[in-house]
């Protein structure tokens, strides 16, 4: 399926004028691939797709969801979680309360990974955890917190790398998956336990158009593998939003292969796998 640059521009324009969504600052190649997939999956020509987008709001919402859906996994990049445990959370643990924002939380695995970490460190009760995503389906999935066993079981390797390393096991014994998940191999399900599901606050949020909708500052913002879909201009806007939403000396984590370039590279200081908001007077 080959789509011309012109058709891509028309699509972006159509979505822009008929909805609140603006994809004009998305990176070209992955956006194109998703459009190609949408066109193929719906067995439509680009012309028909354009026509339908103009007239059918429900269809437009569905297409936007298909374009913006992202994959995530339990404890993705164990080293990041080990850094959180050993470097970041120790600096926050003596605060009266801790506010954490998972921006672009997708289907929620990262939020639940955080809750498990907080619970293991005894910081669960004093922490407020927020998860947001552009995609309403993803928010519903995050709240449901039921995942396919066959696609997620491999991520228990991450769980073991973080919680069941030789060192950790020597310190506090082996951490069992059953503490946090009900695993039903017959039904192919991993179900997050109810007490964890009650804790986080999920809502939709558009990093491109919305401001800080919570009216609070954060001690830690985690936004991993979302910025890769934005061009530099849009990335800078998001860094501005994060910078304005963070307490002084607080933390930002982005994807392992993402970096802050441009004006915010001096205001958010890189420290290995995370960034720290510099104190400005």
């Amino acid at each position, binding site marked *: 399926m080959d789509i011309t640059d012109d058709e891509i521009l028309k699509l972006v324009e159509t979505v822009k004028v008929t909805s609140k969504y603006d994809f004009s600052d998305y990176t*070209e*190649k992955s956006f194109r*691939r998703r459009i190609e997939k949408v066109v193929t999956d719906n067995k439509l020509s680009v012309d028909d797709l354009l026509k339908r987008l103009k007239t059918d709001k429900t269809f437009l919402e569905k297409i936007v969801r298909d374009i913006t859906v992202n*994959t995530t996994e339990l404890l*993705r*990049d164990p080293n990041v979680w080990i850094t959180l445990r050993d470097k970041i959370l120790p600096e926050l643990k003596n605060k009266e309360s801790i506010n954490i924002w998972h921006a672009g939380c997708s289907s929620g695995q990262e939020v639940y990974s955080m809750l498990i970490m907080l619970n293991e460190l005894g910081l669960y009760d004093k922490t407020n955890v927020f998860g947001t995503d552009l995609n309403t389906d993803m928010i519903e999935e995050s709240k449901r917190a039921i995942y396919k066993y066959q696609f997620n079981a*491999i991520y228990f390797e991450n769980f073991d790398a973080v919680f069941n390393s030789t060192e950790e096991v020597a310190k506090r014994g082996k951490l069992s998956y059953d503490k946090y998940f009900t695993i039903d191999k017959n039904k192919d399900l991993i179900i997050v336990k109810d007490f964890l599901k009650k804790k986080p606050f999920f809502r939709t949020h558009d990093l491109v158009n919305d401001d800080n909708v919570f009216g609070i500052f954060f001690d830690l913002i985690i936004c991993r593998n979302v*910025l890769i879909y934005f061009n530099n201009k849009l990335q800078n806007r998001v860094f501005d939003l994060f910078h304005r939403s963070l307490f002084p000396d607080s933390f930002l984590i982005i994807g392992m*292969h993402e970096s802050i370039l441009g004006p915010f590279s001096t205001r958010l200081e890189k420290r290995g796998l995370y960034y720290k908001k510099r104190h400005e007077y």
Partner: protein
Amino acid sequence: MKNKIILIGGSAGSFSVVTQILTELPKNFRIPIVLCLHRLKHVRSGFAEALSLKSSNPVIEPYDKDRIEEGKIYIAPANYHLYIEAHKHFALSTEDSINHSRPSIDVTFVSTASVYKENVIAIILSGANNDGAYGIKRVKDLGGITIVQNPEECQVSTMPVSSIRIMKPDFILSSTEIIKYLIDINNKAFFGK
């Protein structure tokens, strides 16, 4: 002539070949090389470092938006798709696996072909699935040079065989011949030899 790029895709059985290629390319090798190799998701670090030790040029896992530079060897990071965008920089994505693979060779080859067109030299090495076949076909369709490792020499020949099935590569070469070809083309592009 200095706008060329070399793409190498492979999976099972390709690591020793890649190591051999990187070991034998000279220090003055200027054409950027992008490696897209399937590997275990959770064996994250170490691979680029190990290749760096063998290679006379630095082997880098690029960051999102990094510019492609001469004299560097890039390897698609584990668990991301690696694209090349219009202004010759990298873009990463965590979309679903394609052909059961992330990184997917098709993704890297197709996006690079659309930017570099006839300046791509694409190579498919030993591998256990058909990822990369569509990608190398696109390279060929857009005027690039296509090379497939001789299936008889491959530890696992599924990948080169699937490529040959859907397109006619410009060359079917052994690993030693691939190295010689790359050195020749680098000399022509940069040293007028």
